């Protein structure tokens, strides 16, 4: 069996055909010569020979069928015909491919997002075995751990496997001769990378004893830091850098695959912890992230049970620190960034599926209309004996070609989306959302194309199969709009399209509106004339509280003297976002609740002018003043609803408040005032609702925000460089992070929601555009096909308005029915968004009404254009054309 023969017969067909013809001719000539020799005339002899031989063409066809890959030949032929027929109507083809490309593209982009975020394992060895261990308290369901607890756990780890800890920190990184930069640094136990199964690309891992005092001045750089800051220098190992003013030696560079934005990939470099005796005794801290790798053979359930059991032992052994807490181990993959999106990714996939469905039904409609105009051609072909398969093949091939082209376009769209997402999400730290358009994405794109080809190719195919030969041939040249059944089907498609686009549009509009409200929520504070930025004083240079306070006093003084500056304030946090410093409090003089049950509040340490700078309102008592120094008695401010919750109708001013730490009351001080409630722009509700303020001068705070308020009439952006210069003059090694107008910082923080908003907006716009294109196309084509009928109506005395109404009415009815159905669907979509972002208000009847109105107006326009044209038919010309 010759493997190549079928191919040869396919491509070298002419040679084989010639051979076959020549051989048969030879035979016929010989036979004819024989008969001629018997006395027949040459003419008769030839006929006789041919009679005996049989049908040459059919024999050749049979021979061809026997030897070649006929189906492949036919397919190539069909493809050629399909391409030619599509090329003949470039407008249709263009719209079809564009529709499909965008529809599938939206879907593929969403898949690549899910693929990159949820489906791909983290870049660690056996990543699915790794666990993240949380300490759960009433205030913090995903809390961290203390060094002492970690060391205890490490001693008891045997039945589990191994544990490692990690903590992130902002530090200043400086090389000789370069300006200091703020870096996102991590500290880890020496075994972190061994536990994760990550091998440095250059150099080595931390040695097991490098987290002990005196040995921990070593650093492993991330691939990104190595490339960006050190130009991928091959001799980086052994170099020395200054981190927070201390010298460290580079011992390793992590592989590029470690730069996964979902987990630790945005850390610039890692250092080992230093487990000094003092640090190792610390049982208060809650900033260590704890990772575990169960030993082979230990099931995740058994591992989680061990962790929970260890948490219980801690509660019994150290009730002061651990009362009311428990430990919980979850799969690390589930804790990776983006995985917490919960309902959002399925929602996006679902909505992009709607776009695809609209695209499909649109194409089904277009193809159906196209097939109907070719009804006669089909009828004739069926009449001369084409089989069903032969009738359907060109239709299916056309659908297949379109969807392949659409799939290719979709891959391009997905690439574009990836780049857009990377661009949109680029943070100031160089961290960004990155996902590959890999084979699974390509597979999805072409899978979706196949699905769509089946979905929209089916409609015209069914039509062609049901074709009534007799009627079609009889109906002659008169335009046909298809039977009642087809009409009903096409109307249903339009209704469906409008229903789907209504869902898309309302979901998008409500989200955009809700996010806009959130974005511009200035509840209890103002940001208009502010410049904000973050400063982190290195612990090495600013070792004691006195140095920190001196720097802060000096900074406020210098900044306040800048021209155009009205107010200067420092604070641990701005009111723009949730405060992360959560502490427990107790009202002095009352009975103490059980350990762990004390009320928790978010704490902000603020300078005297903080409230003024942010225009936060004081409702009772006084604000902090210059007198509230480290040496003065402790004072507090509390929020209004906090005052209500803790003191009821009593006046809180003058009462005394204490912080609870390690079960003891500390820092007892007087409440001197009450601040009006405010709300941040964070979309997630904070489990902690109470607010407590303390003077910045009474507690050394190395990481703080600066807020500079411009005088009226001065644009805040003009102050930025002067502020930067001021800090450079104070400490040339000190970077100021994100120093820019406050509104821009707020925008920046909400960028992820902005990305989501843009995607939803694109879906909504796309859905509406496709649906209106669909209704326009169908009505325009129907109108064109019915021009003969309209002409007769006109000739019989119908007014042009009647004709317009005839076209306009049904189209509008379908659009409205769709919109109404869609309203029901939008309710579901809205509920889904509301459950994902409780901070965003989605019940907005005005937006709903406006969206419906927009949809109706677009539908009106899409129907009106062809309807008007129908009314303008030249009756005589139309009738003559028949």
């Amino acid at each position, binding site marked *: *069996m*010759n493997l190549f*023969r079928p191919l040869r017969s396919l491509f070298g067909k002419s040679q084989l055909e010639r*051979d*076959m013809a*020549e*051989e*048969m001719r*030879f*035979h016929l000539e*010989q*036979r004819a010569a024989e008969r001629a020799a018997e006395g027949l005339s040459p003419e008769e002899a030839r006929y006789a020979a041919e009679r*005996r*031989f*049989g*049908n*040459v063409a*059919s*024999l050749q066809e*049979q*021979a061809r069928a*026997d*030897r070649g890959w006929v189906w492949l030949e036919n397919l190539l032929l069909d493809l050629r015909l399909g391409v030619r027929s599509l090329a003949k109507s470039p407008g249709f083809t263009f719209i079809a491919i564009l529709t499909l490309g965008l529809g599938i593209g939206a879907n593929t982009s969403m898949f690549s997002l899910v693929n990159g975020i949820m489906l791909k394992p983290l870049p660690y060895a056996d990543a699915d075995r790794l666990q993240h261990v949380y300490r759960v308290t009433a205030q913090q369901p995903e809390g961290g751990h203390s060094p002492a607890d970690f060391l205890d756990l490490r001693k008891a780890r045997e039945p589990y496997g191994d544990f490692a800890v990690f903590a992130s920190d902002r530090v200043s990184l400086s090389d000789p001769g370069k300006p200091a930069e703020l870096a996102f640094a991590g500290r880890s136990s020496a075994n972190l990378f061994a536990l994760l199964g990550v091998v440095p690309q250059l150099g080595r891992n931390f040695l097991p004893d490098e987290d002990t005092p005196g040995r921990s001045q070593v650093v492993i750089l991330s691939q990104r830091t190595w490339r960006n800051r050190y130009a991928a220098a091959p001799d980086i190992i052994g170099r020395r850098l200054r981190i927070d003013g201390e010298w460290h030696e580079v011992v390793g560079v992590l592989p590029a695959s470690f730069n996964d934005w979902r987990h630790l990939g945005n850390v610039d470099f890692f250092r080992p912890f230093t487990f000094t005796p003092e640090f190792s005794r610390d049982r208060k801290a809650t900033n260590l992230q704890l990772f575990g790798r169960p030993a082979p053979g230990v099931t995740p359930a058994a591992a989680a049970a061990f962790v929970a059991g260890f948490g219980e032992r801690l509660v019994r052994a150290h009730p002061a620190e651990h009362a009311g807490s428990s430990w919980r181990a979850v799969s690390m993959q589930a804790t990776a960034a983006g995985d917490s999106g919960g309902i959002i990714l399925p929602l996006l996939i679902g909505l992009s599926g709607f776009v695809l469905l609209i695209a499909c039904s649109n194409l089904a409609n277009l193809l159906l209309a196209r097939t109907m105009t070719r009804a006669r051609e089909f009828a004739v072909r069926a009449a001369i004996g084409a089989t069903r398969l032969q009738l359907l093949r060109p239709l299916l091939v056309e659908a297949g070609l379109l969807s392949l082209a659409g799939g290719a376009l979709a891959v391009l769209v997905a690439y574009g989306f990836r780049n857009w997402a990377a661009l949109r999400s680029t943070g100031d730290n160089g961290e960004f959302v990155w996902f590959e358009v890999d084979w699974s994405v390509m597979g999805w794109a072409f899978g979706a194309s196949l699905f769509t080809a089946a979905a929209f190719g089916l409609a015209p195919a069914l039509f062609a199969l049901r074709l009534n030969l007799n009627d079609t041939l009889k109906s002659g040249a008169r335009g046909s709009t298809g039977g009642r059944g087809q009409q009903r089907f096409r109307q249903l498609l339009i209704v469906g399209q409008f229903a789907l686009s209504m869902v898309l549009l309302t979901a998008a509009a409500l989200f955009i509106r809700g996010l806009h409200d959130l974005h511009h929520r200035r509840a209890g504070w103002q940001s208009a004339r502010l410049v904000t930025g973050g400063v982190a004083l290195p612990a090495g240079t600013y070792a004691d509280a006195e140095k920190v306070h001196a720097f802060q006093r000096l900074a406020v003084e210098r900044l306040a003297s800048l021209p155009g500056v009205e107010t200067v304030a420092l604070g641990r946090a701005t009111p723009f976002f949730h405060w992360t410093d959560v502490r427990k409090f107790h009202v002095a003089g009352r009975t103490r609740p059980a350990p762990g049950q004390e009320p928790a509040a978010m704490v902000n340490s603020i300078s005297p002018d903080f409230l003024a700078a942010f225009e936060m309102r004081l409702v009772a008592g006084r604000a902090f003043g210059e007198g509230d120094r480290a040496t003065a008695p402790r004072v507090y401010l509390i929020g209004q609803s906090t005052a209500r919750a803790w003191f009821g109708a009593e006046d809180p001013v003058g009462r005394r408040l204490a912080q609870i730490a390690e079960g003891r009351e500390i820092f007892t001080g007087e409440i001197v005032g009450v601040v009006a409630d405010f709300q941040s722009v964070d979309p997630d509700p904070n489990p902690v609702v109470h607010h407590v303020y303390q003077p910045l001068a009474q507690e050394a705070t190395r990481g703080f925000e600066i807020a500079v308020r411009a005088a009226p009439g001065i644009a805040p952006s003009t102050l930025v460089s002067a502020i930067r210069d001021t800090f450079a003059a104070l400490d040339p090694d000190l970077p100021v992070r994100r120093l820019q107008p406050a509104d821009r910082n707020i925008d920046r923080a909400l960028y992820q929601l902005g990305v989501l908003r843009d995607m939803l907006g694109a879906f909504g716009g796309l859905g509406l555009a496709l649906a209106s294109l669909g209704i326009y196309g169908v009505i325009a084509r129907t109108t064109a096909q019915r021009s003969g009928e309209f002409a007769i109506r006109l000739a019989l005395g119908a007014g042009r308005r009647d004709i317009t109404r005839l076209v306009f009415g049904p189209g509008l009815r379908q659009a409205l029915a769709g919109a109404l159905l869609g309203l029901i669907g939008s309710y579901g979509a809205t509920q889904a968004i509301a459950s994902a972002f409780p901070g965003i208000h989605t019940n907005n009847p005005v937006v709903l009404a406006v969206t419906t109105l927009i949809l109706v107006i677009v539908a009106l326009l899409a129907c009106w254009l062809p309807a008007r044209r129908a009314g303008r038919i030249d009756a005589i010309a139309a009738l003559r054309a028949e």
Partner: protein
Amino acid sequence: MAKKEDLLQGTLDMLVLRVLSRGELHGWGITLKLEQLSKSALQVDEGSLYPALYRMEEKGWIEAEWRTTENNRRAKYYSLTRAGRKQLEVATESWDRMSAIIALVMQSA
């Protein structure tokens, strides 16, 4: 036509193989030989020989070569391959068996 084809398929192939087992021939030559051997009793569309030839060539039972005849015409000469010879044996054997069975049934019934 399809029916006739089915009926003849196995036997026509066998006959052609048999004819070719005596030496290579072109299509016309095979026709003449069949006619001569069957004393012109075999009535077939002569053309159906050719699809059969191509099919057998495909299966590797026969191979073909273009050469000139003694009358200086180009013609495609077919000859048996090793596989063809084996096939002929198999076909002959099964034919013998089949005809013996049929004969047995026809005589005893």
